[in-house]
């Protein structure tokens, strides 16, 4: 984990209430896709956790939905503004277990961490596929970015784009033997119910610290009590108790 000031390079809306922010700063603590940052927003006491969507040696991308005061503040940042951030939190996804044809499933702003994951899987010579779910066409983002890496199926609740319904409407290809998922809790729970194959899921909890100090985010798992911020946010399907 590193703490420091990161500088906004760009910050732009990419879908309904959804923003993409590019930041410059120390990314040395990022070792795996699925890790997150915890950033300070003006005037709010606690930091806000956001998954890292992509990074390189000196820059990182975040994608966030404006849902409250903190994310609203974020959306007002401009190029050159500093943001105080803890970087490189959590365990991240393990690509070693993926098999040759991993299935990635993301719902809404659960998609960002899957982007760096996909890049890495492709780099490792795997052939991932992606199902991305949204409420409606207005919310769809990063479709082309993802399509450049792999085949993508879009689902929307209202059918305004792609398949109508939940991500669980789309049956996985036969050659898929492993999945990675991130999204709202009901979606993850449904996936665990309907997908027979093993997989990894990234969870969300309200956090006090984000780095393991406060026990604010602890859940029970089959392998004992675990802090979502430290032993997670990524868990094996087998560990989770719904």
């Amino acid at each position, binding site marked *: *984990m590193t703490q420091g000031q990161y500088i906004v390079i760009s910050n732009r809306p990419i879908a309904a209430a959804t923003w993409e922010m590019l930041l410059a700063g120390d990314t040395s603590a990022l070792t795996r896709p699925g890790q997150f940052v915890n950033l300070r927003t003006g005037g709010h*006491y*606690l930091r806000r956790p956001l998954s890292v969507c992509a990074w390189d040696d000196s820059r990182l991308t975040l994608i966030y939905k404006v849902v409250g005061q903190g994310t609203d503040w974020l959306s007002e940042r401009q190029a050159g503004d500093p943001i105080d951030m803890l970087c490189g939190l959590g365990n991240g996804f393990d690509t070693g277990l993926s098999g040759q044809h991993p299935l990635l499933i993301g719902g809404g702003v659960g998609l960002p961490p899957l982007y760096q994951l996909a890049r890495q899987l492709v780099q490792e010579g795997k052939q991932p596929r992606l199902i991305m779910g949204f409420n409606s066409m207005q919310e769809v983002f990063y479709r082309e970015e993802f399509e450049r890496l792999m085949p993508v199926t879009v689902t929307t609740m209202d059918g305004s784009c792609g398949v109508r319904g939940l991500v669980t409407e789309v049956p996985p290809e036969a050659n898929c033997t492993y999945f990675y998922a991130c999204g709202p809790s009901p979606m993850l729970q449904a996936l665990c119910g309907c997908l027979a194959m093993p997989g990894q899921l990234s969870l969300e909890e309200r956090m006090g610290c984000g780095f393991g100090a*406060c*026990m604010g985010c*602890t859940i029970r798992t089959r392998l004992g009590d675990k802090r979502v911020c430290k032993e997670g946010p990524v868990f094996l399907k087998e560990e989770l108790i719904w």
Partner: protein
Amino acid sequence: MVSTAVSLCGIRMDNPVMAASGTFGYGAEFADLYDINCLGSFSFKGTTLHPRFGNPTPRIAESASGMLNAVGLQNPGVEKVIEEELPRMRAFFSKPVMANVSGFALEEYVETCRLLDGQEQVGWLEVNISCPNVHGGGMSFGTCPQSAAEVTRAVKAVCKKPVIIKLSPNVSDIAAIARACEDAGADGLSLINTLVGMRLNLKTRKPILSNVTGGLSGPAILPVALAMVYRVYQAVRIPIVGMGGISCARDVVEMMLAGATAVQIGAANLVDPYICRDIIEDLPAVMAQLGIHNLNDIIGGAHS
């Protein structure tokens, strides 16, 4: 040159700054970031006789200049603390540590304290009679002078090390409880624990915390903490560990003027993991600026 050293119940501390229980784990997460031997000391996560999961999530909510927690005393139980945490801690912390103890029955307090009192690394016992998060069959031990005194007496009977009783602020008359603890033999008092608070989720129209209420901490409660430390200082002669909302070196001075011999930093560790180190580094300059040569000179200074 200014001097920051203080003495708490006969144990010398390089400086009065400790991390508060529940916000510093057993120190490991912070030792990864900086050498935590710069601390005066720290109070480790509240320990109970038996392992506890605590409350289901959500355990955390936010408010203006503060946060609510309803962790519910998650801890591995005293045995594991002694077998695993304390030996591990030895690798990165070489000063006496404060052992924070909770319980839901008198015998639990006694047994947990007895076991921790026997550990070489433990400098002080901090007995939390106030945690508002747990349904312990009604009001907490800390809301009435009699039960506070009872816990104090029972724990003192089995401990050789200084026993510091940690008081709840959710009471009508904290001075009466402080006096009862002093009369029952407490070596020191630590205050304040969190204020009972809650937040609601406007979308679900339900409490945010699974436990409904939680404990409020952070800068929002600093004035309440100062008033209680000030009042307790007038009521007792034993030393006070002051806490509640401290987040900079100036707050440390303010808390000591009100009557604290040492201070603890809680919630601030969570939002700024380097805060204890930074406060300790800032302290000498702030002292110099305020004309303070020796921190001992200002303990309770507002009362003279």
